[in-house]
């Protein structure tokens, strides 16, 4: 019995589908039950949250959590499927501190809101950047510029006139 099946057995309502991500067991979880499922997984020995990936599938948004158990050397993939226009899911920062930045990054680039995150701000792009670049409908045409505001923080604008030397 692999880890996904175990999780399904423990939480039959939360896990909607089990399958494989290439060679890793994968469990698709209802988005309301993600926190429970993750806590259960942590109980099962999955102590490392390797990565959080957000993928924009144009009709839906998927968030994929890759977990690993140092003890049993098992992999487990959790997946939640979110609404495309308003993707929102519980934050896992209470379980893994490492989720903090990974979630911020996913929010920054894919635009997924993690409810309950202590400091959900942009991390790689400056605050005020327009759009989430890894969304398929991101506008690549409009150039955005950054200038230094007060206290060394960034100010985003589409007008680069005080930065560029010539037009």
């Amino acid at each position, binding site marked *: 019995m692999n880890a996904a099946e175990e999780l399904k057995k423990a939480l039959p309502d939360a896990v909607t589908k089990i399958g494989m991500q290439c060679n890793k067991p994968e469990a698709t979880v209802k988005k309301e039950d993600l926190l429970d499922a993750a806590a259960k997984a942590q109980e099962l020995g999955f102590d490392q949250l390797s*990565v959080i990936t957000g993928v924009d599938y144009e009709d839906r948004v998927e968030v994929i959590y890759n977990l690993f158990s140092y003890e049993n050397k098992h992999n487990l993939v959790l997946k939640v499927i979110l609404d495309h226009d308003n993707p929102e899911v519980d934050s896992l920062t209470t379980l893994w501190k490492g989720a903090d930045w990974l979630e911020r990054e996913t929010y920054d680039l894919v635009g997924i809101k993690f409810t309950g995150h202590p400091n959900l701000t942009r991390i790689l792009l400056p605050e005020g950047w327009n759009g989430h670049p890894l969304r398929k409908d991101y506008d690549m045409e409009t150039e955005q510029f950054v200038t230094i505001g007060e206290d060394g923080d960034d100010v985003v604008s589409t007008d680069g006139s005080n930065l560029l030397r010539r037009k």
Partner: protein
Amino acid sequence: MQTDELLINMGPVHPSTHGVLRFKLRMDGEIIKDCQLVLGYLHRGTEKLGEMKTYQQVLPYTDRLDYISAFPNNYCYVKAIEELAGIEVPLRAEYIRVLVMELNRIVNHIVSIGSLLMDLGAATMIMWGFREREKALQLFEMLCGARMTFNYIKPGGVREDLPEGFIPKLNEFLEEMEMRIKDYEQLINSNEIFLMRMNGIGVISAKDAINHGLTGPTLRGSGVNHDLRKLEPYSIYHDLDFKACSRPEGDSYARYMVRIDEMWESLHILRQVVDTMPEAKVISTSKYGVAPMTGVPSTVSTYFPRIFTPPAGEVYTRIEAPKGELGFYIASDGSTKPYRVKIRSPSFCNLTALSGMVKGLKIPDLIAAFGTMDIVLGDVDR
């Protein structure tokens, strides 16, 4: 005595932030009360570019993530594709891959230790280190013509077989390196001031380290003996005799020592690889490859399609890069371009723990602890 808090902006241009990281420090005199990290000054949009290029075109971008050790990046990406498409890799190619990756690990640790010492004020170590690094780079150059950004490992194998005279030169390097690591140890290990600066600085417990998602030498410095080369042996690591190095203290000195130990282990691995390397071709001819041209020896690289379409699906692959666990998540929709490339970079995840580690310490400690995290900004910001 109550004094006003001092806000200090360290970076993005600062000599010891290893690039363009920025610390926002709230200070009470010299003591750090709060350390906030501001990233993204080198955010180049690699993941978006990954969606815009074909599979083979993405490969050069992986070189530029962790630009000190590019081979593992290459390899991890290629491994993801190979797992996705089910490409068989010839054994000799795997040996060469491991060879270059371990060589790169040594280079990475040299640079890491060197820049740590430079941040502490002793510039000699980095000069010595770069002297040896230059020799390793010459080996890389023999192999693929590039010094830092190799684009050498490709789906199905490696670009070229080892050139003539490579192995003798490598042996020479290994012999010299053995002597040099001893030199480094003599210069640094027992230096009283170095010990004063490193011992008990930036301590993180094993439990916290795992919870923060630390990996690589940074994790093993906390006494967690986890190494993906051992846990999930990939390539030919299950055939090799080596041990995962770890230290129980969890402080900066432990992390530094793990790196020194790993250099010895890498030398050990390299010796084995050189001794047991089989003769065979270095690029796959199965499924996506095309049979070699007539008259060309089978060991010479053959044509591998520039544009190919792996089946639809998702894959997440990870390896033990010198800095920690490097992962590539690729979602394919069956077209010539990846639908989504996600990079799990070790530097990014390791850096998560820093602000907790340095609370209550001083600026020089921040620099010492940060130096032992061994990050590269290209890897953090992608």
